């Protein structure tokens, strides 16, 4: 099945060719969780602080379905 993974801020180094406004489209067989997806993309889990699936906060264990969009961030803040 197809899911989209977008990496932000310092995590962009694990997908250096990814354009700023598009995620990586990945074909992965179910069952699939966020942590499995990140490992397949070569992203060390200990670098990831915030995960959103379809615009909601999620954890590493969240199961993914076809068409899901996953956004991953390192620790970030501002304001």
């Amino acid at each position, binding site marked *: 099945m197809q899911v989209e993974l*977008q990496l*932000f*801020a*310092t995590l*962009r180094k694990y997908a250096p060719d990814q*354009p*700023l*406004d598009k995620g990586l489209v990945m074909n992965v067989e179910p069952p699939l969780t966020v942590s499995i997806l990140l490992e397949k993309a070569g992203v060390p889990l200990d670098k990831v*602080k*915030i995960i*959103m699936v379809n*615009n*909601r*906060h999620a954890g590493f264990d969240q199961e993914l379905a076809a068409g899901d969009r996953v*956004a991953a*961030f*390192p*620790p*970030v*803040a*501002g*304001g």
Partner: protein
Amino acid sequence: MGKILRVNMTELTAKYEDVPEKYALLGGRALTSALVADEVPPDAHPLGENNKIVFAPGLLTGTNAPCSGRLSVGAKSPLTGTIKESNAGGITAQKLASLGIKAVVVEGRPPEDGLHLLVINEDGAELVPAGKFAGMGCYALTRGLWQEYGANSGIISIGPAGEMRMALAGVSTNDREGDPGRYAGRGGLGAVMGAKGLKAVLVRTDKTFDAPVKDPEKFAEAVRKLTKALAEHPVTNQALPAYGTAVLINILNEAGGLPTRNFSSGRFEGAAKVSGEAMAEAVAQRGGKGRTGHACHPGCVIRCSNIIPDAKGEVLCTPVEYESTWALGPNCGIDNLDHIAMLNRLCNDVGLDTIETGVTLGVLMEAGVLAFGDGEAAINLLDREARNGTPLGRILGGGSALAGKLFGLTRVPTVKDQGMPAYDPRAVKGMGVTYATSTMGADHTIGYSVTANILKVGGFVDPLQAEGQVDLSRNLQVATAAVDASGLCLFTAFALLDIDYALPSVVDMINAQYGTSLTVDDVFNYGKEILKTERAFNAAAGFTAAHDRLPEFMKLEKLPPHQVTFDVPNEELDTVFNF
């Protein structure tokens, strides 16, 4: 013990006074709010002779405590009618504190029109006529004053907007390179300065870290601890220096809480183009004077500031921060980074609060005065209309609530007539509680619930649920009041919330500097006292629980993509200050 500089604009005098005992342990916001509450009648007209504007460095400012160079500016606000404190970085606060000045209080009103410059140096202070600077933008003014009085002067100034007493006029200070743009932006404090005929305050000294410290050895030990905490925390050691605060654009967009086109959606299709990541890319590609990891004052170890270069590598604007980017970008449907940086520069020059300007532009776009996404028209509105005080420029200068009224709109994102910053309260509900109940109108810094709602700093409270938001906002509002008194940059709070030895190190610093024996518990009581002082002033000025509410449209209109409304009950909002 320090001294207070009292400047009377009716008499045109500037005199030093001893600091009353009751103010000895107050600094920054604690001191500006105490002085305003004690000396300004709550029914004073904000632009009249009885209002006062107070400038105060924080308790730790002028020492080598990391990130401790904040300047608080306080008065009764012409925008909200409440008490107001807004604080900024830049180099001026450290100079004031190093000269032993705990506060500058400016009162009265000149008998006739005319501008003055307050010059403070190591020998004293005097008012000098400044008519030649009338109408001048903050860039030319700062450059001119550096030439006349010496580079490295600290300059607190207003642009034409402040001179015209526009309700969204801010107060600027400068950085080490001599650029204005470190703004105590919110609440129209620039209009109060303008009403007093005070174009600028110039502080001429090279002293930076010369505030007295009673126990230098203990102080140095505490400084080492806080510096270590800031160096260890990944937010303050990686994300902020690499991407600036606009690293938040993408995360708020992903969370569905990035207010877009006057708060009509929580997602902006052009977010990536105006993100912190895009700014870092532009800085790397254009080179020249552009940079990330820029410090706004000596002793800042976080370095969240940036210099955005134009295509030739010259300085376009510094800094371009998250809230300014959002206000002048996504909230206006503008996805062109160069337009946003130019709009930001114009705000800095004309003397406009970037947030209120962007929120007002969003309302004017909703009204059809200009089109969403039209960066050129927005630039023209600031540079021609606002700068010159045309009728349309004055409409912008009145702020978002006024613009909404003039054009008969209901989607007007304000609380106590102050425009909401860059977090939609329907999708980041903790910020809704803060906006509704803040003593200053809609303000994000005063209780930054984004920490636990979005960033997972200091725990996690689901941003889409009403539960837990009141407690979160209350605790943050109390802690923030204390941080705002310390002179520390609020960004130290990310480490203070997450690293257990960080907050005790701040208390140790204050004890070592002032010879006190405060505890961590005292910090929270100190914060509560500041809030009580501010609430009491507002109550006497006529504010009630009915003013601690979000605009009705946020309870009625569902925000995409989550299709949520703001649903924290009114009776819960009324418990925020139950302490």
